[in-house]
């Protein structure tokens, strides 16, 4: 029986604007088991990053969580005060950001930044922290760790910075790692190395990883389960092989079809027509209906529910649920 490290229940995150509050994430529930990589996929603006920031409670000033629970090893971290949440960040749950070059403080040496985390959470002395930092740099596959320790971030390449970020995130042995598009800003060749590194580190310390990405190739490569988000809602979740073999939700189908294939012979890249609706002008029914080829009348009137199809599979679509009823 695998252990649920991170469980998010009915998370709803809203943003206050001048006029009204906008719902960026609505009723999102998912979990991450030990030793598992869960992918969170969606277009820009689908609420992936807001979900991850909500989990760490790092939302911008006008954002707030209006509903739901975030359970980290069975403790609801939404009830904690600022000090306790600070103790959890970095030590229990850590995050890697999209752009490694700007995630490091440009005026502090890399090594010192690595030491910060362990000195803070593991109460290491300077000497211990330094030894640990060098050990971590070595672990993420950088040669000459002592040398890199004394460098400034601008003296590192993008791939190296992301390695350092991973080292920093993992230096206090967190249970859960949130990786927010960790490879988007990197070269393709470096991407594979960084993904390999994340997998390797995951296997070594048996942590749970929540991988946020819009790259389906990365998902297929890395993840055990996938959650597809659209307009702040989960539209489909499934095991990775199931999802790619038999995508149920029209949005997922569209996403998979949009991956360019080498040698397909066509000059026109397939895409999903239309665009993600603005948060303030959400359609009433199914949020994807205006862009959906198969939309029926019901789709525009009534928002479908997220239906549990089998043990691992959920889908939010009228078409799928009606088909299911007919078959049954």
């Amino acid at each position, binding site marked *: 029986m695998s252990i649920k490290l991170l469980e998010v229940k009915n998370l709803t995150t809203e943003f206050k604007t001048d006029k009204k509050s906008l719902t960026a994430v609505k009723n999102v529930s998912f979990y991450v088991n030990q030793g598992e990589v869960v992918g969170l996929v969606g277009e820009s603006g689908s609420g992936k990053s807001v979900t991850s920031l909500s989990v760490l409670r*790092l939302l911008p000033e006008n954002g707030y969580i209006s509903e739901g629970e975030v359970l980290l090893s069975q403790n609801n971290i939404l009830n904690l005060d600022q000090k306790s949440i600070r103790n959890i960040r970095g030590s229990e749950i850590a995050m890697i950001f999209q752009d490694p070059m700007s995630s490091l*403080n440009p005026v502090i040496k890399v090594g010192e930044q690595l030491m910060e985390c362990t000195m803070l959470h593991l109460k290491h002395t300077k000497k211990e922290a330094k030894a640990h930092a060098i050990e971590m740099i070595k672990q993420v596959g950088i040669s000459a760790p002592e*040398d890199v320790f004394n460098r400034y971030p601008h003296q590192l390449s993008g791939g190296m910075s992301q390695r350092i970020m991973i080292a920093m995130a993992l230096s206090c042995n967190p249970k859960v790692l949130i990786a927010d598009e960790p490879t988007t800003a990197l070269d393709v060749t470096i991407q594979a190395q960084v993904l390999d590194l994340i997998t390797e580190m995951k296997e070594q310390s048996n942590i749970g990883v929540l991988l946020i990405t819009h790259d389906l190739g990365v998902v297929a490569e890395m993840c055990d389960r996938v959650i597809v988000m659209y307009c702040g809602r989960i539209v489909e979740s499934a095991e990775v092989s199931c999802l790619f073999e038999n995508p149920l939700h029209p949005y997922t189908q569209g996403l998979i079809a949009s991956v360019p294939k080498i040698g397909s012979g066509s000059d026109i890249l397939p895409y999903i027509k239309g665009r993600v609706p603005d948060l303030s002008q959400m359609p009433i029914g199914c949020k994807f209906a205006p862009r959906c080829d198969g939309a029926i009348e019901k789709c525009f009137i009534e928002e479908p529910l997220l239906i549990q199809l089998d043990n691992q599979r959920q889908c939010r679509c009228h078409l799928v649920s009606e088909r299911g009823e007919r078959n049954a």
Partner: protein
Amino acid sequence: MKVNTEIKKKQEDYKFESPMIELSRKFLKKKVATVSFFFILFLIILAIFQPTPYDISQTDYSNTLSKPSAEHWFGTDEYGRDIFSRIVYGTKLSLTVAIVGVTVGAVIGSILGLIAGYYRGIPEMIIMRTCDVLLAFPGLLLAIGIVAIIGPGLINVVIAIAIYGIPNFTRIIRSSTLAIKELLYVEASQSIGVSDLRLLFKHIFPGTVPALIVSYTMRLGTAIITAASLSFLGFGASPSNPDWGAMLSSGRNYIGIAPHMLFYPGLAIFLTVLGFNLLGDGLRDTLDPKLD
């Protein structure tokens, strides 16, 4: 052999220059700023070692108001005191007053600016509106007002300069803080659980330092003028003290017969302030990566 050169190349790649050396090289390319830098260094040396040929309070009634000569380079004043010696001594007074005053102002102003920029909301409103009020006063008037309240004297001039400088530093540091707060590395440090205080001083403050250095240097120039003006008006150093402003003030009565009494202290003020301003300009060009 080929492998060897490759290894060597790799090792060379690892050698990086310290940013300090890079910046000083960039700075030394700016001729005017470099000259100002050495001029100010020279002033500081003068202030420390005090190479005064005569005692500053040694009077010589047989030789009053004499013109500049080989014996008295800058001439003598109404009591026959050597003006060159008094100006050299005045360097120490002016620089000390300016540096202490501006430093105190910079420290307090930076802390307030960091708080205002980081916490926003009510603290920011209180701090920034107070700054607006202070900045609404015409510069010197504020200093005169402060000295009028706490009384004349050099220490009080220092306090006046400090208070007068606070709102400027607060504004500059606040705006830098606002910009830096939004950078990803601040969020990244939050994500590993760094405390607010550490975040402010270890991660945000260093980013504001370039702006701080530039405005600090410029403020030194302004502070010297303010101190001299206060002394000139009789609010600062007592006339017996060889402060540049006080010397101008006592020379005022002899402007017709001994213009050198005004010329040299005035020149000292002018050159020092110019030096600080040009240095500040050069530092800004050096520290701002956008101005290349």
